[in-house]
């Protein structure tokens, strides 16, 4: 019996990591040879399906979403941890709402964004519709990480600060925030990762225009959307493969950063 269980354990672990290696290996092997300089030229045309406009659009969407989601998310974390009492009934409500939002599938966010921003607000398929949608999508991620980071800061630090005469705000910004910073940052980085990989929520909010958006009211496409459109059109398999490599690289960098930060974070939190 023991032998069988041990066998299963090793077998399924091997299957899991074999699948991962296969996927990454496939993306790299099929994509790297097609990474040509042309794919990074500034203009997209039907002859040269450059990914540069979509890379820049991705950066716009990330920047815009973070600009909205960070203040709201971090401030919400401040309220939940530093201000609201343990038995505040609103806190429970906010936590439930945040958890629920975390589980909402991207397609539902996309549908909502389309109805609320594209149609009701009249923004059409545009950068602003995409940004608002993805900001709401990553908000729970930032709130959760901020909350956890703040909660891990020891209470005696706050009490020491109060005891020295500092007010609540000063204590939060001067004492608590610096210690919690790596944790909050790693939440922000996770949010970046989520936006980079997003397609379903952006397809009908940001749209899939091939050109670089020239204002927040014009449409564009992110890298992931670019890859989806290329592969569903079916004419540019090689270029889709190459786009996959870039996406994977971005994910790799994001993961590295967040691991590094959370290691720093656990070190800092132990003081």
């Amino acid at each position, binding site marked *: *019996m023991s032998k069988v269980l041990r066998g299963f354990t090793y077998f399924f672990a091997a299957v899991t990591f074999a699948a991962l290696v296969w996927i990454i290996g496939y993306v790299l092997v099929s994509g790297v040879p097609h990474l040509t300089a042309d794919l990074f030229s500034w203009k997209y045309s039907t002859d040269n399906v450059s990914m540069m406009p979509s890379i820049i659009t991705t950066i716009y969407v990330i920047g815009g979403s973070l600009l909205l989601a960070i203040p709201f998310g971090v401030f919400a974390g401040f309220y939940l941890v530093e201000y609201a009492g343990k038995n505040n009934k609103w806190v429970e409500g906010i936590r439930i709402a945040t958890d629920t939002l975390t589980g909402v599938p991207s397609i539902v966010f996309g549908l909502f964004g389309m109805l609320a921003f594209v149609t009701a607000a009249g923004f059409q398929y545009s950068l602003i519709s995409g940004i608002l949608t993805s900001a709401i999508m990553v908000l729970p991620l930032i709130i959760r990480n901020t909350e956890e980071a703040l909660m891990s800061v020891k209470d005696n630090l706050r009490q020491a600060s109060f005891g020295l005469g500092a007010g609540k705000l000063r204590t939060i910004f001067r004492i608590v925030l610096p210690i919690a910073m790596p944790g909050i940052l790693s939440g922000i980085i996770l949010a970046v990762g989520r936006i980079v*990989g997003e397609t379903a929520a952006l*397809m009908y909010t940001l749209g899939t225009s091939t050109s670089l958006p020239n204002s927040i009211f014009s449409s564009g496409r992110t890298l992931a959307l670019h890859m989806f459109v290329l592969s569903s059109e079916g004419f540019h398999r090689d270029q889709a493969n190459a786009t996959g490599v870039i996406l994977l690289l971005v994910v790799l960098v994001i993961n590295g950063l967040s691991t590094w930060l959370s290691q720093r974070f656990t070190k800092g939190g132990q003081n």
Partner: protein
Amino acid sequence: MKQNNMLETVMKYVFMLAAFTSILALLAICYFIFARGLPFMADYGFGQFLFGSKWQPAQEIFGLAPMLIGSLYVTLIAFVLGVPTGVFAAMFMAFYCPPKLHKVLKPAMNLMSGIPSIVFGYFGLQVLVPVIRTFSRSLGIASNGMSIMTAGIILAIMILPTIITMSESSLRAVPKTYYNASVGLGADHDRTSYVIMMPAARSGIFSSIILGIGRAVGETMAVIMVAGNQAIFPRGLFQGARTMTANIILEMAYATGTHQSALIATGAVLFVIILIINGIFAYVKRTGVNY
């Protein structure tokens, strides 16, 4: 000092307002989805919409049953393949993996959870679809490779990181004293791991599985690339089907009027299913043991 106090008060309310955005966002999502979805369902008839077996937008026939069944089958396959794999792999990560290997595999697992769904879908389309096509033909079944089986396999892979990461951390949260007591009574490592440690972590493992199911039901892009997307009841493991998520994204581009409302209603049904799954998740997590 006076001015300082005012700033304190103002900021307190600013923080409070920020905290209420998640409630506000959730309410707004519910409002927009249900305000268009529910009236359509009421007009068309709830029963006819949910149990109707034909989806023909051109004839204004909107029966969601094939898509409900499509989502169910695809999720079920992902469950059958993904759960044992995930739980055993989590056991490996928690109790069998040498620490040096763990230092490599843990970041690898994080990387896996960060891979965009479009990349999974693309891998499925280019690699798995031909494999399934050849395999099913070798069994004498006509199939183009885009099938509920293909979608199920891709989803199973996609939910692995969710299941493994959460299960591993709940397995590690079981106190070491349980392990020592069991070994002290003469049980070996395997028996202790599976008979003592795994049951002790069951609520965490269950919640990871529920979370995985939620992810599988809501997944869109990877599924539409490999599932075939025919709006009919799936006729076999190696035949195509369309999920609810795929239904929305495939037709939204050109849908207008009633057709668009029908797609939003599809979203409403999906949303309710996800809310139920989330509710079960929250319940299991809350009733779980905390060490």
